Structures are given as structure tokens and as C-alpha cells.
């Protein structure tokens, strides 16, 4: 490849991404000159291509001739236009116009597109000519360019083109015309814009084009377009209804709001819901009374739509009606109103829910409890706690407990404990226990939680006492353990049983001494087994040191009598990394029922031990391999054995 003499050095300085576009470095004239030189060299096309892009960033009038020279290059024309379109100098437009007259086919179309993108008004005359002389399939590009450029002359050209449009060119001409209409609207030439739209509407065009034309026509007519919009709403043409609805959202103005408000009551329900939604979205509170009336007058769908719109308005005047619907017998409307209350963007909605909580209607009070939960109204929690204790209706009390579960904190624990201790119905008791467990689960001060729970134990009957113990088991701090330990000697057998089982299932190693005693001394064989398992489980915890784990495993090993517990023991040993644990695990390698677990534990220990005590590993790995572990474990055993040797 023949290179321009300065070319390699030039590229080294220019082609490193970011190097020439360093922070706060304005494009230097010297840099541009070097880039232009690349374009004018015999550099390979890929380098010229990237150079065109770089000129898009820093090119000036000086770069235009070099870029324009590439517009006839099949490979590089698209890259050159990237550079040219970005340079703001009018020299680009002149170069594009000149090229447009000389080029043919796709390359010409590309230049025409660039003229449109640059809004080159001086190109309008030539582009207009192309509408007449180009082959029909190629007329779309100049039409689109004229549509983008806009102006009187472009408008006239497009108007004439519409007259002679064929089925092939009509959609493109219409699109261009409508785009031009948008320009005219922006310039305040509404009548001219409207004329274009009306002309398109009168033509036999695809429906989606007529829809677009109608949309622009309504916008162009401004205030006079409002009756047209309303007429479309009322029409049987589905597409035009959609156009009107889009504009009902889109166009600002109190006059349109007023017209929509007047129209909504005259429409069939299927259309009413559209308009109601739009009225809500317009955020004009003057429509509130109409929407409130519609919640009473129409179908369920209309009511639901009105409820949604009222919520968007956020006018507190709507709250009483929303409450009324929300507490009505179960229905879709009631659900919608409840959702509206949840989403209502004002603090007054919190007060409305609070007021509902002391309503005479139990259903309303139930709804209030749910809404307070869903709105996460923390300020209402004391009132909810009071209702959970004192409401006359058990269902309401249960509902309030569910809300306390969601929103309650440490201050509410005493109240829920009090409810539980009162030995309520099964449903309330379960709700109270759930609330306690969830509230405690959220707290960081476990000791404070345990204190509140333990305070309730003394006065609690057996059933609530068991519930409190279950929550204490979940809290699992030192105070909780002490309380559960004490309950193991409770006069009530159910309490004893519950407390013992909770201890056996304790989650921390703090219970290990109690579990060991229980495993050794319990008269109940089931508890002995459960305690031993619990002892092993807490011994395998992450908070247990290796030394303590080994000691616990030794204790347990002395008591284990069945393979089920030996299996658990091997699982715990597998977390170790010392020679004694390895030796203990190896004792089960010849037990057919435990061979696989023993191999796994032995290999796992050996992998941790191999560096500090390779001799111990060598001895046991031989036994492991002899026991015939599975393929993967054999591989691991051989690997650790190799390392040990």
C-alpha cells in the first residue's frame, strides 16, 4: 500500500481515540489542516472514513472541499456527509447543492437528505424541480427534504406535487406536506397549515395519514379546532376518535378543558372513560364537580375512570366521595376508590383514613386499617394500636393487628403483647403473634424486644405463652434463651414441650450447654435426640471457633448412637481443618451407610490441613481412595494427596 509520505506519523497523532478531543481542547486549525491532508492523500478508505468523522467535530469551511470531493465516492460518501452535515458553515450547503445536481441514484438521494437535514432554503427551487422530473420512487426524498425545510416556496411545490401524485408517491407527499404544515403552525400561519391538512384529508390516502392530517388540522385551527376535536370524539370513525383522545391529553388550554367537560356527559360510556381519563390528566380542578357527578351517574367503568381522574387532580374536596365509594360493599368501584385513597397525593387522605377508623361501620373501619397500612401512615399507628385493643369487632381488631405488623415498631410491642396475653380468638392470636414476629424482626435492639415479650409471659395463659416463646425463639438473644430455659420447667406440659422443642431448635451456640445437658439427661428419648441434633447444628455455626467445634464434636461423638446423628456429626466435622477432626471423620470411612459423607468430610478437612500437616492427610487420603468415593471426590482426594506428598 502506497502511503502519503507524512501519513504514518500523521495518523499516529490523530487516530488515537480521545487524543485529539482532549478535555477543554478547542479544535485547532492546525489539526483540521492535518485531517484535510489525510482526505486529500492516497490514504486507505478506512482512514479517510474515520477522518471524516473527526472533521464532523472540528471541521470548518476549510474542510468542505475535501469532504465534498468524497460525495461521489461509493464507499466514502456516507462518511463525508457525516462530516459535512455537522459543519455549520454555509459553504457546506453550497457544496451539497452543487453535488446534488451532478450525482445520480443513491448518492444523490443521500445529498438530498442532507439538504433537508440542514434546512437549506436555497435548495428549495432545485428540490421542487426534482418532484417533477425524478422517477416516482425517487421523488420521496426531495419531498421529505422540502417538508423539513418548509416555507412558502416549499409549500407551493408540495401542493402542486399533491395534485399530480401517484399511488406510489402520495404517502410521501402527504407526509412532507403535513410536516410543512407543522412549520407553518410554528410560524403562526395557521390558515395555510389548515389548508394543507384539509387537502390531505380530502384525498384518498391510507387511514393513518388521514388521522395525522386531522390531528394537525385541529391544532392549526386553534380555538376553532376545539369543536372539530369534539366532533371527532363523537364520530363513528374509530381512528378519528383516537386522534381526538390523543389531543385531549396533549393540547393545553382552559377552553378545551371546558369543552371536554361539557362533552363528557353526552357521550356513551365507552367513550366517556377516555375523556374522563384525559380530564384527570389535564390537572384542572374545575372539572372536579363533573367528575364527582360521574361517579354517581354512570356505569362501573365510568365510576372507576372518574375515581382515577379525581385522584390525579388531588383535590381534597373529592375525598369524602372517595371514602364513600371505598367503603361500599365489595366491588370493582370500591377497590378502585381504595387504590385511589392509597395513591391520593395529599396529607388530608391520611386524616380521612384516620376518621374512617372510628366510623360506626365495621366495614369502614376494616378498610381504614388496610388503607393506613397501604399508605404507610405511621402517624396513625397509635390509633391503630388502640383499635386493635379496643374495637368491638373482632375482624376489625384482626385487621388492625395486620396493619401493626406492617407499620408497628418497638413502641407498639407492649400493646400487641397485651392483646395476645388476653387470650383472644384464634384468628386474633395468630395475627398478634405474626405482628410480634415481624415487628421484632425489623428491630436492631433485640434485647429491648425480648424485654417486652418476657414481660408478657408471667400473666399469659399456656397458649399465648407458647406464642410468646416462639417469638422469643426468633429473637434469640440471651434474655430470650433464659426465658425459654425457664419455661422448660413451666407447670403446664404444653409450655414445657414447646419450650424444650424451641431450645432444641435454637439458632446460636449460646444454647449449647443447655442442649448438652438435655441430650445427656432428658428422660424423653425424642428430646434427647432433638437436643443432640441441636447441639451438633449450633456447633457447626459460623460463629463457632475451630477449637470449640472440635470439643463439641468430641462431646457429641461420645453420645451418638445412630447413623442419622453420625451423618450430622460428619457434616459439622467437614467444616474443620485440624488433624483430630480428620481422624474422627476417617473412623466412619468403613461404615457403608456413611462412607460417602465420611469421604466428603475427610477430603474437605484435608484440603484445609494439607499445608500444615501433610502427613496426617497422606494417611487418611489413602483410606478415602480405598473407600471408593465418586469420580469428582476421587479427583479432589488425589489432588490433595499429591500436594501432601
Amino acid at each position, binding site marked *: 500500500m502506497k502511503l502519503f509520505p507524512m501519513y504514518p506519523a500523521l495518523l499516529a497523532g490523530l487516530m488515537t481515540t480521545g487524543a485529539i478531543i482532549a*478535555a*477543554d481542547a478547542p479544535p485547532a486549525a492546525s489539526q483540521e489542516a492535518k485531517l484535510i491532508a489525510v482526505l486529500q492523500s492516497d490514504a486507505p478508505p478506512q482512514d479517510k472514513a474515520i477522518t471524516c*468523522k473527526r472533521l464532523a*467535530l472540528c471541521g470548518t469551511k476549510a474542510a468542505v472541499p475535501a469532504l465534498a470531493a468524497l460525495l461521489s465516492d461509493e464507499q466514502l460518501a*456516507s462518511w463525508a456527509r457525516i462530516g459535512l452535515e455537522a459543519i455549520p458553515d454555509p459553504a457546506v450547503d453550497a457544496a451539497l447543492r452543487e453535488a446534488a445536481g451532478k450525482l445520480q441514484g443513491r448518492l444523490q438521494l443521500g445529498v438530498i437528505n442532507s439538504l433537508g437535514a440542514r434546512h437549506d432554503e436555497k435548495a428549495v427551487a432545485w428540490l421542487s424541480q426534482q418532484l417533477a422530473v425524478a422517477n416516482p420512487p425517487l421523488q420521496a426524498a426531495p419531498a421529505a427534504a422540502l417538508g423539513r425545510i418548509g416555507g412558502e416556496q416549499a409549500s407551493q411545490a408540495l401542493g402542486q406535487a399533491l395534485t399530480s401524485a401517484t399511488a406510489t408517491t402520495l404517502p410521501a407527499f402527504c407526509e412532507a406536506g403535513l410536516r410543512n404544515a407543522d412549520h407553518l403552525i410554528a410560524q403562526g400561519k395557521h390558515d395555510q397549515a389548515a389548508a394543507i391538512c384539509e387537502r390531505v384529508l380530502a384525498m384518498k390516502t391510507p387511514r393513518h395519514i388521514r388521522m395525522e392530517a386531522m390531528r394537525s388540522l385541529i391544532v392549526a385551527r386553534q380555538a376553532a379546532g376545539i369543536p372539530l376535536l369534539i366532533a371527532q370524539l363523537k364520530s363513528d370513525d374509530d381512528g378519528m376518535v383516537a386522534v381526538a383522545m390523543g389531543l385531549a391529553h396533549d393540547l393545553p388550554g382552559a377552553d378545551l378543558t371546558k369543552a371536554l367537560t361539557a362533552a363528557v356527559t353526552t357521550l356513551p360510556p365507552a*367513550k366517556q372513560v377516555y375523556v374522563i381519563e384525559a380530564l384527570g390528566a389535564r390537572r384542572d380542578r374545575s372539572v372536579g364537580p363533573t367528575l364527582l357527578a360521574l361517579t354517581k351517574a354512570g356505569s362501573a367503568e365510568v365510576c372507576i375512570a372518574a375515581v382515577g381522574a379525581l385522584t390525579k387532580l388531588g383535590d381534597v374536596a373529592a375525598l369524602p366521595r372517595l371514602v364513600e365509594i371505598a367503603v361500599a360493599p365489595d366491588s*370493582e368501584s370500591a377497590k378502585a376508590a381504595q387504590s385511589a385513597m392509597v395513591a391520593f397525593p395529599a396529607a388530608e387522605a391520611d386524616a380521612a383514613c384516620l376518621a374512617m377508623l372510628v366510623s360506626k361501620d365495621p366495614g369502614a373501619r376494616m378498610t381504614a386499617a388496610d388503607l393506613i397500612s397501604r399508605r404507610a401512615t405511621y402517624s396513625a399507628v397509635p390509633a391503630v394500636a388502640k383499635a386493635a385493643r379496643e374495637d368491638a369487632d373482632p375482624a376489625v381488631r384482626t385487621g388492625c393487628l395486620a396493619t401493626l405488623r406492617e407499620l408497628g415498631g418497638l413502641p407498639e410491642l407492649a400493646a400487641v403483647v397485651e392483646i395476645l396475653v388476653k387470650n383472644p380468638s384464634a384468628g386474633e392470636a395468630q395475627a398478634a403473634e405474626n405482628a410480634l414476629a415481624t415487628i421484632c424482626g425489623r428491630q436492631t435492639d433485640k434485647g429491648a424486644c425480648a424485654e417486652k415479650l418476657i414481660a408478657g409471659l408471667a400473666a399469659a395463659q399456656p397458649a399465648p405463652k407458647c406464642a410468646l416463646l416462639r417469638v422469643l425463639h426468633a429473637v434469640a438473644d440471651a434474655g430470650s434463651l433464659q426465658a425459654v430455659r425457664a419455661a422448660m420447667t413451666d407447670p403446664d406440659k404444653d409450655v414445657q414441650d414447646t419450650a424444650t422443642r424451641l431450645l432444641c431448635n435454637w439458632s446460636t451456640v449460646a444454647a449449647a450447654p443447655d442442649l448438652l445437658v438435655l441430650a445427656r439427661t432428658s428422660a424423653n428419648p425424642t428430646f434427647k435426640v432433638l437436643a443432640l441434633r441441636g447441639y451438633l447444628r449450633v456447633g457447626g455455626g459460623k460463629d463457632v471457633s475451630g477449637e470449640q467445634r472440635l470439643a463439641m464434636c468430641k462431646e457429641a461423638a461420645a453420645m451418638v448412637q445412630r447413623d442419622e446423628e453420625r451423618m450430622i456429626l460428619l457434616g459439622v466435622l467437614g467444616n474443620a481443618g485440624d488433624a483430630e477432626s480428620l481422624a474422627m471423620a476417617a473412623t466412619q470411612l468403613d461404615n457403608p451407610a456413611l462412607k460417602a459423607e465420611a469421604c466428603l468430610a475427610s477430603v474437605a478437612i484435608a484440603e484445609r490441613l494439607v499445608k500444615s500437616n501433610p502427613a496426617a492427610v497422606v494417611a487418611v487420603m489413602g483410606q478415602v481412595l480405598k473407600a471408593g468415593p465418586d469420580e469428582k471426590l476421587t479427583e479432589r482426594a488425589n489432588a490433595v494427596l499429591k500436594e501432601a506428598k
Partner: protein
Amino acid sequence: MQSNPFHATSSRRRFLKTSALTGSAVALPYFIPAAALGRDGAVAPGEKITLGAIGIGNRGSYDLGCMLEEQDVRCVAVCDVRTERREAAKRNVDNKYGNKDCVMYTDFRELLARPDIDAVLIATGPNWHALAATMAAKAGKDVYCEKPTTKNIFESLILAETFRRTGRLLQAGTQRRSLPNFEFAAGLAQRGKLGKLTVLHAHPGGLGTESSGWAAAEKDPGPQVADWDMYLGPAAWRPFNNGILHNGFGFEKGGGMVGGGCLEWGSHCVDLCQWANQSDDTAAVEYWPEGNRLFAKYASGVKLILRNDGWLNSGSCPVRYEGEAGWVETGDSGEVFASSPDLIVGKRAQSSGYPANFHIRNFFDCVKSRHQPRAGASITCQTHIVCHAANIAQFLGRKLNYDPVKNEFIGDEEANRLRSEALREPWRI
């Protein structure tokens, strides 16, 4: 009304606000009898939505698979420039319906010309997304389009403008807008549970700004394998190259010069931040790179940070919203982390991963109801503008100020030049 696509109109901004609200976490159940509309306006109930699928690679196959599960959807046509993918897609569709009816196209314009098709899936790769989506809208189709949906700021504005003008519906493939953990977290921010928002965090999935460039020429296997010219489409010409053909995922992402940058996950995570911040109708006004992070600031003072590291164990595409009263963080793990357990007591919904089914269902529901989808064109436009502007700041290596009304960088001509890029002939948008 302004026709300059760099200028947002007041009506459009209002419309955007509307769309944002209807897609919010607290949106009410909304029912529009589809009987009020019909084909070319919407699909009447009882009728199946007729679907065409354009660009059926890895992601497209997944999306199409979800769409084929929808009982009220009938896919009748598939299009891909690669023969192997086109035929595989047809097999999938035909197997689903137990017939041989699915029609294959290499040129998506032929598919768009079919008047019987109501909606299209566009999963071509980012090079084609915006152009194909706007052409589909102009052809009267509703569009589910994968992300990143645009290559630059100009395309973003044209996308919104075209869908507004034509009255068609766009759902961008930012499916996390329809997943419960993200909705819950956004809801906390929107309902003021975090106090006044201060900082939003989005995972960009990388910040590199690489151009797709011009790879070495290789032997073009011809249209029996792939139509290279249609593959390139609006991208500047370059010779056939297998690496490019097989990397539609990243080809021309973020435009030819600036590159993908934060668009990969940013189109999701920035989108989620826009949602939580209730700024779906606008973009941030300042952008700057700092260390290995990108920063942006909204006119309200809320800061947006795009960072790849320092996340909790929240999975891919995480976001974090911080306010004066607390914070919340979530991601594809479905877990929601918060500054206080009290903030997540109301969380009932659980999810994990990032399935698109809910988002796709929302799209088809909207095709019937004409309601704005959760990730409509206007929302998508602003999300992508934030990503593009951040990428441009990263590329230029300096702070940029952006006017979201005029849609221009203030006092920075270089940055403004990067807002758009010419399309290869004969394509135009």
C-alpha cells in the same frame, strides 16, 4: 407547535407529564373499552393483534417467544437480514401455531407495507432501532422496540415527535419499568418516603465510548447468508465483516463516533432513575465525568451518578435512590434494600431476574386500549437524551451544560455537533 426536533413544545412536555403519571407506580386500574376503536385506531376486543417481528437474533427470539405466549397475539411475519435467523424464527412461529403460515421477509419495508399487521417487534440492534421504529409508526404500526432505542439526541427527539404526530404507540424494551421490585423502589421515591430526593445512582454497564469503526474487508457470502447492505442500513458504509455481522448487539450503539458508553444498562437504569425522580418529561442539565464515574444534575438539584462499582448484592442493573430521609436500592436479584426496615414493610411483590412478559403484556394491553405504555416514546426520548448527553461528556472529557427545552448544549459547539449524525443514503429519519 415547533417543528424543529431539537425544540420541545409545551404541549409535548405536558403530554410527557401525562404519560409519566399514567405509567407511575400508583396508577389506577384503567379500563378503556376497545370497542370504541378498531383497526388503524386500535384492535377491538376478541380480535387478535397481528404481529410482525423485525430482527430476530438472541434478544429478538426471547421477545418473540414472550409474545407468542400471549393468547391475543398472532405473529404472521418475521424479518431478518440473516437467512439462518429468519428461517429459525419462522420455524418457531410455525411450530407454535402448527402451520406453515408465517411469512419471511429480508426487507422490513415489505413487512411494514402489509395493512393487516397491527404491531411490530423491532429487535434489530441499536443501529436500526430508531429508524425502523419511526418508519413503522409512519406506516401505522404500534411498536415494541428494544433498547438502546436511539443512537443520538436527534434520533431521540424524532422518535418522540413521530409517535406523537402519528398517534402510534411505542413501548421501549426497558422492561424493568414493569417489574415489581423496581416499581416498589420508584414508588418510595415518588411518594416522598425517602424525603426530598438528593442523589440517584444508576449502573451504566460500562462507560467505554468506542466507535464501531471500519473492520477489515472479508469475503461477502452473499444474500443467501445475509443482506449486508440492509444490515448496514443507516450506518456509514464499510466492507463486509463477519465480526460486525455477528455483533449486532453493539454495532453503532450510541452512534458511530461517541459509541455505546452508558447506553447498555443506562437505558434501563437511567430510565428507572428518571421514573423515580418524576423527571420523565425532561433531562438533566449538567453532565461531567469524574474518575471512573459519570455525574449529572437535574434543574431541581438532584444528582445522578452512573457508576459500575460499589453496589450492594442487588444483582445486575441496580439502582439506588437517596433522599434526605432514607435510601432504597434494588436490582435484578429482586431484593430491595433500604436505609430502614420501615421503608420496605409495605413491600408485598417479589420478583427476580428481568423477564419481559409483564412489559410485553402492558404493550399489547395498550395496543388495545390506546393508553400510553409504561415506556412510551416521550419517556424513552428523555431517558436516552440523558444517556447520550452523559456519553458526550465522557467522550469530550469535560463538563457540559444542557438546555432540555432547546435541546442543545450551552456554549459548546463540539458537543452540539455530536447531537446528530447523517444517515447513509438512501435512509433518512
